[in-house]
């Protein structure tokens, strides 16, 4: 369950170039549901996702995830929360190019004090779920856009996080790969994940697993 209450995010506050990215945003996302955040570029979708994942702190307001107030968490707790509860897939995937697929997916597990065998088992499982296991020894710089996205999804799934956040997941994919992504949503539904997808792509209208579409404009929910 994700609850956002009266959220504000103002960049460069009290400066000439002050900019309000989010203005009085409140929303409720029930557990194990797939929700679409729709809006044009600059409407505040990505900022909202980064605050829900505790990558950024709001100017004011509150975010409650599974009963935990995460808006003002100090770095150590915020990173633990992110590591255990959130799987974030960026628009550009943000993989470490100098590492191979296996090592990229392994990165969130290094801070979890697990044994080598446990890490290996979890990584292989995540790679299988994302259907990219066959490329595990490949360097990510050699992969296609769709394959990179699968690696990023495997990385998001590897810690068994309940919440998956996708920022413009189809922006860098061709139509065929975008449709493949839609079919993945059904798998997430089966895995009982709470999923938020920030997008302006209309392809998601074809999906029948979307619980709700929230429209955003100029930092507000409309």
């Amino acid at each position, binding site marked *: 369950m994700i609850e956002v209450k009266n959220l504000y995010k103002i960049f460069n506050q009290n400066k000439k170039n002050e900019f309000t990215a989010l203005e009085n945003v409140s929303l409720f996302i029930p557990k194990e549901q797939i929700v679409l955040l729709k809006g044009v570029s600059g409407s505040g979708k990505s900022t909202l996702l980064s605050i829900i*994942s505790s990558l*950024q702190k709001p100017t004011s307001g509150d975010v409650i995830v599974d009963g935990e107030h995460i808006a003002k968490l100090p770095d150590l707790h915020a*990173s633990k929360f992110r*590591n255990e509860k*959130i799987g974030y897939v960026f628009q550009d995937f943000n993989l470490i190019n100098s590492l191979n697929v296996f090592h990229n997916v392994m*990165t*969130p*597990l290094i801070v979890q*004090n697990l044994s080598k065998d446990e890490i290996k088992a979890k990584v292989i499982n995540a790679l299988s779920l994302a259907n990219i296991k066959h490329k595990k020894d490949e360097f990510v710089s050699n992969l296609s856009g769709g394959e990179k996205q699968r690696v990023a999804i495997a990385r998001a799934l590897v810690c068994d996080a309940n919440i998956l956040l996708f920022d413009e997941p189809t922006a860098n994919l061709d139509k065929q790969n975008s449709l493949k992504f839609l079919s993945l949503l059904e798998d997430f539904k089966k895995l009982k994940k709470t999923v938020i997808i920030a997008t302006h792509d209309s392809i998601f209208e074809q999906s029948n697993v979307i619980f709700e579409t929230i429209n955003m404009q100029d930092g507000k929910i409309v």
Partner: protein
Amino acid sequence: MLNKSFYSFLFLMLFTHRSKHFSIFVISIILVFILSSVMFISTSLSKDIQYTLNSQPDFVVQKMKAGEVIDIDLSLIEKIEQIYGVKNVTSRVYGKYFFKPLKQSFTIVGVDFFEEQNSKNLKTLSKKLDMSKFLEKEYMIIGSGVKKLFDKFKYDKSYFFTTPLGESIEVEIYDVLDDTTSLLSNDMIILPKELAKIVLGLDEFKASDIALNVPNELERANAKVEIILKDDNLRVISKDDMKSYYLNLFNYKTGLFLVLYIVVILTFLLILYQRYSMINSSDKKEIAILKAVGWSIKDILKLKVFENFLVAFFSFSIGIILSFIYIFVAKAPFLMQIFLGFSNLDFSYELTPYIPFGSIVTLFIFYVVPFLCVILIPVWKIATVDVIKSIK
């Protein structure tokens, strides 16, 4: 977080960043190599000098005239022997002998082999010395630098000395002094005292100086004053004065190197800091990605500390090992000339390996700590910056 998988990941990152670390690794090795070479050579020389000077007399008395050392009357020996606490008063004969073929000078030392102290010292210097055989005829014992020059000019068995009166005296070589003593004996020729006087043109009742011992340390200062009171023109040099003279000579050169090193290391740290401050976008992105997947700032700093500590540690260790090999195995070519340049002959001196662990630990701390600091400050700055900004 310090589990096996962390270390595996650490080595993985170290391996993937190897090209980035390579230049720093090489520069670090060179810097540590230079400083530890200077440290090894100066410590070893200081130890050897102390060891060699320990066998020297407690005091040497010289006669001065117009600020120059002149020959001293042997009659003074009796007067000095009367001073309370003074023992083993002996006259010494030494001086420079000009070797015409190379236009260089040897140091001739005349020794009375019947004196107990001299005989003991010589036996320490020359292990082959058989006193009765040595005294059979006119022999000499030479330093390793002299031996080299004699060999070069085919004086492999004997040498013809020319006295100031123009006479020629042939003296056979009995033995060559060991390389380990050549810090002080490299250009030395040891002759029987009377023969040395003839070669150097010294009067029968004169000597170059007088050596003496004062076994009781508390009486040394008083003995020194008493000797000076015998004659205003006497100069009394203590063993400690000699030690300080040589040690100061090497410390002064070590100091020069140290100042140069400090300048170089500060420049290096500055470059390192600038380099990490201008960390490229892929490095920034890497740190931001680790943060995004749940690494805390502490975890990221730990990774970077270990990564750079390994670079610093291995470059430091390799630098130390290379300098040890350079100084004690390769006999410090070039650096030896700088430190022992006061000798008029080529040195074949063998430094005694000595590892100053205290200095190495101090050097390690003063090298690694600033090394890690200049890297960690910019990394910490990046790690605390907004992840979204860094990723973009």
